């Protein structure tokens, strides 16, 4: 395995980890709100959160490209601070996070819904305020589901292609992930490199599924 291939594998893994970290707090927060609160516009929020799951990833990528391009709403703001997102590793992380978030929210929400409110009520009778109830009762009891959701999000991030290639491109050494690399190498006839990336991708997927099944079995 040559250096370029190894670097692609390392970059992809690090980016997926970063994406998981980025989606974790917002994802858990949204999941909790959806599980525990009613409010006007709730179904709209649910729909928007599910969109990346249902839309073609390329379409999501186009949306992100528009959002973060120099003329787009977020891109223009960031440009004033001298920050560019499109075609950078940051774009890879954002694309991965956006595509993985719905999976995390769904799984975490189910986890919160499974924690009976009665435990939370007991904690309240013992004098715990809302934040203490959440952090010492709700969150620990939903932890396993949240972890499963994070692993799902991570796996999705690892294999993410459509949105990534649109908003981050396939720049060698900077934004070329495993999936995007397979595509680029295939398109340009570099079949040997594509095959090596393929082997790595299959191996990582194998390990991920094995670990996730173990986790589910021990539950």
């Amino acid at each position, binding site marked *: 395995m040559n250096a370029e291939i190894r670097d692609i594998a390392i970059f992809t893994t690090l980016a997926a980890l970063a994406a998981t970290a980025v989606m974790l707090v917002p994802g858990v927060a949204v999941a909790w709100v959806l599980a525990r609160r009613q409010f006007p516009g709730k179904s709209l929020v649910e729909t928007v959160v599910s969109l990346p799951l249902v839309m073609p990833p390329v379409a999501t990528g186009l949306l992100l490209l528009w959002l973060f391009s120099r003329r787009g709403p977020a891109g223009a703001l960031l440009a004033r601070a001298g920050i560019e997102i499109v075609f950078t590793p940051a774009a890879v992380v954002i694309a991965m996070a956006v595509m993985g978030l719905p999976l995390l929210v769904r799984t975490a929400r189910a986890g919160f819904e499974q924690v009976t409110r*009665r*435990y939370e009520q*007991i*904690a309240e*009778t*013992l*004098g*715990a305020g809302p934040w203490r109830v959440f952090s*010492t009762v709700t969150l620990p009891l939903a932890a396993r589901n949240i972890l499963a959701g994070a692993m799902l999000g991570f796996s999705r991030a690892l294999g993410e292609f459509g949105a990534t290639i649109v908003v981050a491109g396939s720049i060698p050494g900077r934004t070329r992930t495993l999936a995007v690399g397979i595509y680029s190498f295939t398109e340009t006839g570099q079949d040997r490199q594509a095959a090596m990336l393929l082997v790595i991708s299959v191996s990582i997927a194998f390990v991920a599924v094995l670990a996730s099944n173990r986790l589910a079995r021990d539950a």
Partner: protein
Amino acid sequence: MAAFELDFTLQQGEFTLDFIVHVEARALALFGPSGSGKTSALEAIAGLRAPRRGRIVVNGHVLYESDRHINTPVRHRRTGYVPQDILLFPHLNVRENVTYGRREGNRPDLHVLVDLLELSALMDRRVASLSGGERQRVAMARALYSGPDVLLLDEPLAAVDLPRRRRIVDALLGIRDELSVPLIYVTHLPEEALTVADWAVLIDNGRIAASGPPRDVMPAD
């Protein structure tokens, strides 16, 4: 000894309960057939259920008064609550469960509590490994350690088999006499009402059918 001014109406669909008890007592037993609403009345005092209207005052603290739009949140009510299904936190061990409550003031000494409820051998055990009676005592300790003004128990002997009920009764007496924490407990067993309570309330047909010293209120055996 606590002063209870309990005067509220519960409503759920077709069911209505007018609950009126004004008494000073150390231990108040709520007695009645299943479905009479005794658990709901207890939950209303704890703040876990909203009455339709009324007033709930314990030792001068107004916990609920619909006329003045007062509905004290659960965490500020200082009511210890032990539900019928006990609900110990499954992810914490016994010690962590007992010491969960963190309110200031009027908190019993942990050692006294542990001795009274005979928990010293259990403190580091996981909740899942406890028997019914052990759970009951841990739940009582947990509620007491948060320093409540009144301890509410829903069928405290239900989870315990006959031979070990004595232990729970002794614990309740200890809480009443040694810790001086007032009790309100729900029961459907007359003998429970007789042993611990100094005031009993019979709930039937959506209202208080009888209210007085247990001997006077309990149906004849």
